[in-house]
């Protein structure tokens, strides 16, 4: 079920009504054109050759036999195509920042020597068909000198560990200094001195692939000095800018077309190496080139969520007040710093003394990068299991313990609004928390044990700059130009609905133009749950401007049009703007076979005003499902002897099937804090942040043993029960 509580909110004409996606018909009838559906005259097909070794130096590469194969048009390797892939490795793992990228010490190229993980790309072939391209790869002779490798982040920092780079395995920060990321608030040692009890535990989480349905692909087409790139991207503006810089072009020389895509979940931010490889092959061959990755290549060659090891130490008074929190942690980044390696969660607590030290570490595993809420689910799992354990150890209800210790507005840091307490209390009541949780964990008689867990969060919902253009003609047909792509949440529909509301016309009168950098203005990109808020505000402002023009000059007549655009720079007046959520889960654990089944799943979110209830609900559900998969199933195992990945792909990573997915109740408490378009906040990443923490807490409550490692597979449960 789903439910929307809108107390005190003015009902609107379009927003807040379940609205089918404006492109639903195209999608379900096969008319939607995804990148792989494009066919251009003379187009070649490309394939990439990848390292079979976790760490090796290429001694020689001989492409002559591949080049001689009939149908092969271009072969490029690390020797003759040294294109820097800026977004592939960045000091500090930061994004969208030209100076930081320029200063990056450990640069990544589209092809690399030495190779640093199984799947590192070293060459590519373009040929007249796919089969010839694949055959040509087998004809490239590569001689490797194998090097020692390291897979685990903690081991990578030990004395004498194999070195991924000469400077060592600790990743450089954004200044280029080899230091961990440290956040130090208050006086943590003083806080521990105040505590009556101190608790410690180690938590670890695995590598999770984004597992979006559509693997990477890219179609490059040069028209003179201009590159047209058809590619699935979660941010066409940033993809254009990154691609232009990597190829030594100006932004206007690159056109990104990303109309339909089969999911992203953070896997398709910015530009990817596929874009640069396709562009390089196409330029050399003089014809369009379509590069496609297989599922296995996509799994191993792009990126997924970073695995972590988190050591917590928490000081607490007998009355439940937390006086100090400390975390030392390690994030396995693979051999390139594509993203931060962040571990969030401690900042959801108000404790005045907090110390956090995160070591992002190079390893010879596949690269880590963005995945829906990049820093949050694994961090919330760690810290919220730590705190749940503390609550039970001191004999408190974890909900009451949270209400006592969670972050609240202060005079120094005010919020645009604050619903966390309401969200938690509402969820506890709906779920019947008191009846479902076991006051003594693991107290059910017999081997089938039930228990309940909860988790909570706040997540940034800040405003920022994006652009929109809106036009009206004499037939009162409105056209909205926004540089969004639809990675799944329905951005096109959402933008159209916001425009319709602001223009005071039905959605049917609004056509949305999207997904093309030559047609659409800058948009922030489908990452960080920002499109609805940031581009949405621009849509509202452009619409307001157009309405003023119409009021001043009347509707255009004949072939005239009126056009308005906006690039606002909104602020939240110095306040922090957050969305809030709490998840409550009841599980049943069959302790004889280590199986976990979810019996009840209740979510309560405050994401501001909900634009489109049906897609908002499904965002929470879909993200929660991913989080359950992270909690109970998914991992990427490596063979310790050879450094080979063993479990890539949907089958081996044990993703949830439809039959595994429980009913997920979704409740929104709707508010309008006066910021964001009509008060909308974020929803896309919220669900995944909470699921691993809540599920793991529920398992611990059922079996009476804390599960300190994700995924909570049966061998871990049976091991704990043995």
């Amino acid at each position, binding site marked *: 079920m789903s439910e929307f509580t809108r107390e005190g909110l003015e009902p609107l004409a379009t927003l807040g009504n379940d609205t089918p996606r404006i492109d639903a018909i195209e999608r379900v009838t096969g008319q939607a054109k995804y990148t792989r559906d494009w066919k251009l005259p003379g187009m070649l097909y490309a394939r990439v050759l990848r390292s079979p070794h976790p760490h090796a130096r290429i001694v020689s590469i001989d492409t002559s036999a591949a080049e001689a194969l009939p149908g092969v048009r271009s072969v490029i390797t690390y020797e003759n195509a040294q294109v820097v892939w800026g977004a592939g490795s960045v000091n500090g793992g930061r994004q969208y920042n030209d100076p930081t990228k320029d200063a990056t010490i450990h640069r990544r190229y589209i092809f690399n020597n030495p190779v640093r993980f199984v799947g590192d790309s070293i060459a590519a072939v373009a040929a007249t068909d796919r089969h010839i391209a694949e*055959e040509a790869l087998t004809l490239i002779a590569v001689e490797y000198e194998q090097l020692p490798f390291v897979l685990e982040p903690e081991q990578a920092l030990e004395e004498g560990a194999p070195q991924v780079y000469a400077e060592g395995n600790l990743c450089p920060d954004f200044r280029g200094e080899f230091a961990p990321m440290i956040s130090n608030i208050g006086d943590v040692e003083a806080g521990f001195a105040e505590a009556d009890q101190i608790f410690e535990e180690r938590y670890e989480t695995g590598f999770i692939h984004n597992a979006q349905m559509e693997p990477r692909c890219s179609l490059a087409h040069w028209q003179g000095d201009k590159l047209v790139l058809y590619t699935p991207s979660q941010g066409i503006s940033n993809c254009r800018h990154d691609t232009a810089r990597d190829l030594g072009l100006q932004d206007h020389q690159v056109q990104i077309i990303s109309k339909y895509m089969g999911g992203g979940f953070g896997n398709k931010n910015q530009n990817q190496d596929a874009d640069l490889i396709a562009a390089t092959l196409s330029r050399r061959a003089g014809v369009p080139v379509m590069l496609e990755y297989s599922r296995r290549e996509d799994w191993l060659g792009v990126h997924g969520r970073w695995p972590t090891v988190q050591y917590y130490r928490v000081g607490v008074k007998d009355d439940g007040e937390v006086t100090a929190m400390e975390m030392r942690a390690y994030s396995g980044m693979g051999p390139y710093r594509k993203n931060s390696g962040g571990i969030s969660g401690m900042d959801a607590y108000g404790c005045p003394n907090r110390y956090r030290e995160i070591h992002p570490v190079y390893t010879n595993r596949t690269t880590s990068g963005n995945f829906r809420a990049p820093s949050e689910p694994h961090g919330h799992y760690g810290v919220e299991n730590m705190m749940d354990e503390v609550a039970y150890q001191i004999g408190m209800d974890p909900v009451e313990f949270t209400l006592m210790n969670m972050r609240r507005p202060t005079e120094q840091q005010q919020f645009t609004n604050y619903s966390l307490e309401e969200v938690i209390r509402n969820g506890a009541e709906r779920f019947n928390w008191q009846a479902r949780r076991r006051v003594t964990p693991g107290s059910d008689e017999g081997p089938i044990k039930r228990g309940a867990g909860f988790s909570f969060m706040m997540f940034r919902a800040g405003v920022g700059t994006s652009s929109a253009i809106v036009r009206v003609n004499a037939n009162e047909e409105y056209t909205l130009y926004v540089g969004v792509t639809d990675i799944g949440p329905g951005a096109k529909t959402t933008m159209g609905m916001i425009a319709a509301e602001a223009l005071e016309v039905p959605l049917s009168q609004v056509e949305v133009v999207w997904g093309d950098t030559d047609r659409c203005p800058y948009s922030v990109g489908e990452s960080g749950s920002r499109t609805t808020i940031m581009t949405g505000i621009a849509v509202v402002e452009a619409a307001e401007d157009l309405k003023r023009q119409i009021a001043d000059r009347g509707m255009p007549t004949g072939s005239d049009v009126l056009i308005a655009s906006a690039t606002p720079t909104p602020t939240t007046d110095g306040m922090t703007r957050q969305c809030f959520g709490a998840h409550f889960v009841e599980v049943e654990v069959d302790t*004889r*076979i280590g199986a976990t089944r979810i019996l009840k799943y209740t979510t309560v979110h405050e994401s501001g005003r909900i634009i489109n209830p049906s897609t908002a609900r499904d965002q929470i559900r879909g993200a929660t499902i991913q989080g359950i998969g992270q909690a109970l*199933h998914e991992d990427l195992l490596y063979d310790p002897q050879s450094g080979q990945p063993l479990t890539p792909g949907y089958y*081996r990573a044990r993703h949830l099937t439809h039959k595994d997915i429980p009913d997920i109740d979704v409740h929104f408490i709707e508010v309008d804090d006066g910021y964001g378009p009509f008060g909308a906040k974020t929803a896309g990443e919220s669900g995944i942040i909470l699921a691993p923490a809540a599920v793991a807490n529920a398992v611990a409550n059922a079996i009476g043993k804390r599960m300190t490692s994700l995924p909570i597979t*049966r061998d871990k449960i049976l*091991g704990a029960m043995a």
Partner: protein
Amino acid sequence: MKALTNVNATSFAEAASAAQSARQQGQAVAFSAGGTDLLQQIKDGTDNADVIINLRTIGDGRSIGSDGAGIAIGGLVTLTELSQDPLVLSGLSALAQAADSVGTPQIRNVATLAGNVTQRPWCWYYRNGFNCFKAGGNECFSVNGENGQHAIFGGGPSYIVHPSDVAPALVAFDAVFQVTGPNGDREVSAEDFFVLPITNPERENSLTENELLTGVRIPTVSSSTVSTYHKIMDREAWTHAEVGVAAVIQRDGNQVQNAKVVLAGVAPIPWRVQAVEEFLAGQQIGEAVAREAGEIGLQGAQPLSNNAHKLPMISAAIERAILNLAAG
């Protein structure tokens, strides 16, 4: 993907001789019925077939029928057909349940009985292209590696687990396997069809080159026989058994006259637990007996470094399978 030759066979005998002549010309050969797994293996490079002999063009081997001696099931019967056939449902519940537990509906709609029984292991070392025993090498990488899903019984020198759900049910029903080769037909008991790695670490069964499984015959099952297939999976669909139990019990009231208990997912072949069968004979089915049977099922277990968690699962699965068969 490499170039392949497809040969449409019109009979099993023709398929066998086509395989023989292709091999005589030095080509690698694969038989394809449903092809659900084979084509992926070829794409992955874990099967190097030059010639695919397509069995879907054969008219025989597609029916399920009974005569005085029992039930005959063609090798090309799909798993969906097997799981929905009235004869199988009424007399061979364990077989119907096993077939219904395989993969997904899409897979079951094309995958066949013979293909399921003869499919290659799903050990991730083999499937990831390691040069292991199953790929013609001389090492089992699971021994010092990630062996959480590997063999508890009958392992060495290879520690794969047999991937079929259907096969343990067939062993439990004393099925006879019908085999066709270039030199004619032969029959072999289900139990003798499968071979341990100590005998042949490269293959899972006794089919010689150019032979293929064409069908099975199941002797008449008495009306006092009940059966079940209990499968523990890591998710609710599209995965092989972590532990499976096919149990066939002939009973009088609640008293066991004769039991066959065969495990899936724990050994390189469908693993008969004879100690459990012997223990059950003459016992009244009940919780204590079932529990003891589960414990006896662990006799001879030799877990590897990372798969001891399967032991309690084996006990629980045997116990629950037996309790499923208690008279209602």
